[in-house]
Structure formats: C-alpha cells, structure tokens
C-alpha cells in the first residue's frame, strides 16, 4: 500500500463480507464491493432484499455485525465520526420537521453542519422552492417535500450521496431541477436505490443486485442488460 495515497485513490465505499441481522433475521449477508470516488452504483433488488439496511450501514446509522466496512476512508463503526458531515442521505423520510418552514428546516441543518445560510437560500432557489420557502413542510405536496429533502441532503456538499428513490414524486420539472445536485454530473460518489431498473442501469457505473440479503450481482452497468437483473425480482 503506497504511503502517498492521495485523496483521489481512497474508495468512496469499500465493503468486505458485511452482514447485519435483526435478532435472528439476517438482513444482509456477505456483501463485498468497492466503489471508486465519484462513481455511481445502482442498488437493485426486490422489497425486503436488504437495500435500505445497506444504505443505513453506509450512512453510519447501523453497525455492521460482520465483515469490514469503510466509507470515505473511515472504518465503520470505529471511525464513523470521521465520515460524519461528508455523507448526504436521502431516505424514505424527508427528515424535515413538518411544522417548521422549508427555510427554518434548512437553516437548522445548515447550523448543524456549519454551513452558511446563504447556501440554503441558493439551493432553495435552484430547486424552485423559493416561493414556498416560508410555508411549513406539512403544507407542501409530496413532490415539493422531496425537493426540500434533496436540498437538505446536499446542503453540506457531501462527498458521498446515499439516495433512496430520489426521483420519487418529482414531476419532470422537478427532476430536471435537482439533476445538477444529485445526478450523474453532480460530482460526489453515489449509492442509488432505484426500483425502476432501467433508469437505474442508465444512471450507474456499477450495479449491485441483492436478493434475500445476499449479493447476487456485482458488475459494471455497461455489461448488463435488463434481462440479467430480472432474476432479482423473481
């Protein structure tokens, strides 16, 4: 291992034999892959295959029960604090307080991450929420809420984006507006859960297929066709 490893050569994600169980139910078993910085991996699989569990482990919210996991060069769970603040998570929930306004929510997250409020304002404008910025989140439509959640996820300019169905509920205008923030050209490495397998394949450099918690597919997206991944959903 070269002593002069540069930041560019540290993989965004490196998993080796990672497993996680909930009591006796094994949610993930023996997952191993390496994601280079700036690359995108599409995580495909049926419901209950372990995709969300994987995402939460990468976010540092769940501790792996087996194997070794490192995110942005920090070994989980021992060094999880090193990666905190450099990862952006967009999960099922928007992670916004429903009774606070968009602006108040984003300012709160900005303060937590030590980011200037101006960035929150700029993002709000960019995704087209400027008109609704002072409305409580509970009054927004699902698409608007999703846009606000995306702002929250990228507010601190993370190096790794963990996205669970990022385009769900977004109209074409919204999808266009958020593309520079979370799309392929945005910059950070991305772990992307998508149920639309075709779109997932198109977006990604790599594909990770999970079935029953086990790793069924790990291959460059260019080498896979739709038929290859159908088996995951059988």
């Amino acid at each position, binding site marked *: 291992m070269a002593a002069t490893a540069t930041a560019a050569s540290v993989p965004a994600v490196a998993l080796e034999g990672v497993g996680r169980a909930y009591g006796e139910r094994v949610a993930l078993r023996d997952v191993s892959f390496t994601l280079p910085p700036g690359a995108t991996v599409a995580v495909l699989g049926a419901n209950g295959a372990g995709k969300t569990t994987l995402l*939460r482990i990468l*976010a*540092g*919210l*769940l*501790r792996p029960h087996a194997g070794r996991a490192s995110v942005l060069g920090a070994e989980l769970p021992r060094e999880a*604090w090193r990666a*905190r*603040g450099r*990862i952006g*998570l967009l*999960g099922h*929930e*928007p*992670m*916004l*307080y*429903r*009774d*606070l306004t968009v602006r*108040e929510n984003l300012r*709160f*997250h900005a*303060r*937590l*991450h*030590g980011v200037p409020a101006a960035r929150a304002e700029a993002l709000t404008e960019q995704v087209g929420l400027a008109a609704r910025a002072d409305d*409580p989140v509970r009054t927004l439509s699902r698409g608007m809420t999703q846009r606000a959640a995306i702002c*929250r996820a990228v507010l601190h300019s993370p190096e790794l984006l963990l996205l669970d169905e990022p385009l769900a509920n977004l109209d074409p205008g919204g999808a266009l507006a958020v593309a520079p923030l979370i799309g392929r050209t945005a910059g950070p490495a991305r772990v992307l859960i998508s149920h639309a397998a075709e779109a997932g394949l198109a977006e990604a450099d790599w594909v990770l297929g999970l079935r029953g918690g086990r790793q069924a597919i790990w291959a460059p997206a260019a080498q896979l066709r739709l038929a290859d991944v159908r088996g995951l959903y059988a």
Partner: protein
Amino acid sequence: MTGTVAALIRKDLQLERRAFESVPAMLMFSISIFVLFHFGLDRGALAGDLAAGVLWVTLLLAAVLGMNRLFVAERDQGGFDGFLMAPVDRTALFVAKVIVLFSFLVAVELVAVPAFVVLLLDPSPGQAMPELLAVLVLADAGIAVVGTLIGALGVQTRARDLIIPLIALPLLVPVVIAAAEATAPLLAAQGAEPFPARWLAVLALYDAVFGLLAYAVFDFLLEE
C-alpha cells in the same frame, strides 16, 4: 458544542411556538388538577405540607406531559437520523433537551404557581419568594434531567406514553420528597417558618448525580 446546543434549542422553541404542543397542555393540565384537588379534598384553602404536596404532585404530573412530547418530533420525523449524521457532539442533544424541558417547566410555573396561590393557597407566600424560587429551580433541574433521559429511553419503545411516567415517577420521588419538605414551611398557615436548607442540599445532590450519570449514558440511547 455551544453552537450545536443553541441551534437545537432554537429549533425546539420554534417548533413549540409554531405547534403549541407542550406548554399550553401542561398548563391547562395543572390548572385542571388544582380544581380536581379542590373537589377531591373538599377544601377551599390549603396550607403547610398539604399545600406543598398538592403543588408538587401537580407540577410533577404536568412535567410528565412534557417528557412524553419531548422527543416525539425527533422520532416521528427523522430528527434523530438527521442529527446523528451531523459532525457534532452527540451529547449536545441531551444538553439542549434538558434546557428546553427546563424552560417549559419554568414557563408553566410562571402561570401555574400564581394560579395555585389564587385558587388554593390560604396564606400569602410573599416573603418566602426567594426560597420558593430556589426550590423551584433546583427541583426543575432534577425533573428536567431525569425527564429528558427517560423521555429519550421511552420514545423508542412501543407503549411510550405509559413507559415514560411509569419509570420517571418513581425516579423522581426523592425530588418530590425534598421539594415538598422544603416548600411546606414556606406555605405554613401562620406565615413562613424557617427554611430547612438541607433539603436544598438533597436536591442539589440528586441533580448532580443524575446529571452526570445521564450525561455519561445518553449516547448509548442514540445508536441503533
């Protein structure tokens, strides 16, 4: 750390002002209990240890309402996750929530204690005010510390509205004992009697022990 605590407090106070979930409920509940005590005890005026007991039991029950709601927004709206992923000291959440619960208690007492004086108290506690304030502050600190910890413990369980009072109330018995014993002479029928300062020492000891313990143990409640 102070920046994080400030941001968290600010967010909670914004939420409270917007949604009005805790303080008005705690206040209305206190006043209702005062009325209930009036009818239950069939007395119009209380003094001494009876008055102290009614006051502190009421404040404690109102505090339970506050404890129940303290972490609900975090739990139901993904607030824990958002906080856990931020590059901040995790104990800041504990400190912030203790300060928030303490300020809710103070806000409630600003109205509830005068209401108690008007509705149920026989003598006027005028000259005993400074001592009364000291007891209120120390007892509120203990309730805030234990309430925050048990609130965090209970919010992740299924029967959270039951578990929290069931665990917190026995834990707060020493606070009730000390606060009531300290307050009783201040509300005596013949005018305020000399003040037993050792109960303040008990309260301070309780606050210190549980404060330190809670500070040490809180992080373990946040992991998944």
